[in-house]
C-alpha cells in the first residue's frame, strides 16, 4: 500500500499527547467511543478550542493532524 493510499483511509491525530491513527471520517464521538469514554464525564479541547456542546460531538469530523485533549476531574487539593 502506498503512502497516498494510506492517507485516504486514515488520519493521524494527537490525542492527549499521543499520536493515534483513526479511520478517515471519524468524528469526535467515534473517538470517545473507541476509548470507552462517556462524553458526559469529560471535557474536550480540539485544536485548542473547548467544545462545550456535547450534542455536536457526533457531527464533528476530525481532520488529519488535529490535536485533541480529553480531560476529566481527578482527586486534588
Amino acid at each position, binding site marked *: 500500500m502506498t503512502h497516498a493510499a494510506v492517507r485516504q483511509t486514515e488520519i493521524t491525530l494527537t490525542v*492527549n*499527547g499521543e499520536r493515534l491513527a483513526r479511520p478517515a471520517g471519524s468524528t469526535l464521538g467515534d473517538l470517545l467511543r473507541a476509548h470507552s469514554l462517556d462524553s458526559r464525564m*469529560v471535557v474536550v479541547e480540539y485544536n485548542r478550542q473547548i467544545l462545550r456542546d456535547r450534542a455536536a460531538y457526533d457531527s464533528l469530523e476530525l481532520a488529519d493532524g488535529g490535536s485533541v485533549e*480529553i*480531560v*476529566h*476531574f481527578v*482527586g*486534588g*487539593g
Partner: protein
Amino acid sequence: MATAALPSLDTQFAIAGREFRSRLMVGTGKYASNEEMLSAIEASGAEVVTVAVRRVSLDRSRDDGILYHLDPSQFFLLSNTAGCYSASEATRYARLARAAGFNEWIKLEVIGDKETLLPDVAGLIDATRELAAEGFKVMAYTNDDLVSALRLEDAGAVAVMPLASPIGSGLGLLNPFSIRTIKHRLSVPVIVDAGVGTASDACVTMEQGVDGILMNTALAAARDPARMATAMRLAVEAGRLAFLAGRMPMREVAVPSSPTTGMLE
C-alpha cells in the same frame, strides 16, 4: 432556674453571595482508596470539595475519574489549577473546568517554585484579572503576604486563600500575624489553604478570625482519615467559636482565680 439559650454556633458564611454550610473545605487527592476519601469527606461535613483537571487515560488503565466516586449533586465542586506554572496555563485549565458544567468557580493556583510550591504572585494576579473578567468566581491561593492579598482582591478575586505553610507540609500556621493582618484588611473572605497538619493547627488558624480553611493532605495522610476529618470539623468549629467569643488578654504574671481573702489563719 431557666437555662439560658445556647449562643448560636456561628455566623453566616458566604462567598460572592453564595452561602456555604461549612467553613471546612476539603481536597480529594492522595487518599489510599476512594472509600477512605468518601468516609473522610463525610466525616468532615465539608460542602466545598476540590478536584483537579487532568488528561483521561486513553487505555482506561486508570479508572480515576473522580465523578464516578463522588456524587456532584451532594457537594460543591471547586476545581483547582494545581500544577500550573503560568497564568496562560492556569486560565486554560480554569476554562476546561468550567466547561464541565458544574459552576464558574475556580481555586486558582499559579505556582512559581517546584520545591516549595509557593505561588507566582505576578502570574496569579494576571490570571485572576483575566478570569474575573470572564465571569469566573476566583478563589486565589497565595502566600501569607498582605500586599499580594490586597492586589488579588483588587484584581477581582471573590476570596483570597493564603497558606498556613507550604502545600502538603503539615507545618501548621507559621505566621498568625500575617493571616490576621490579611483578614483585617480584606473585604472578601479569607480562606486559609494549605499547611494545616492536625486539629490544633486548624483551631489556631480559625482563632485568627479567618472565614474558613481548605485542607487535603492532613486528612488523606492521617493514619485514620475519617477520624482526623471529625477532629478537624470540631477544631474548625471550636476555633471559630473561640474567635467569636473573644479570648482573654494574655499577661506575663499570674492572676489568682480563687479569692485571696477568707484564708485560714
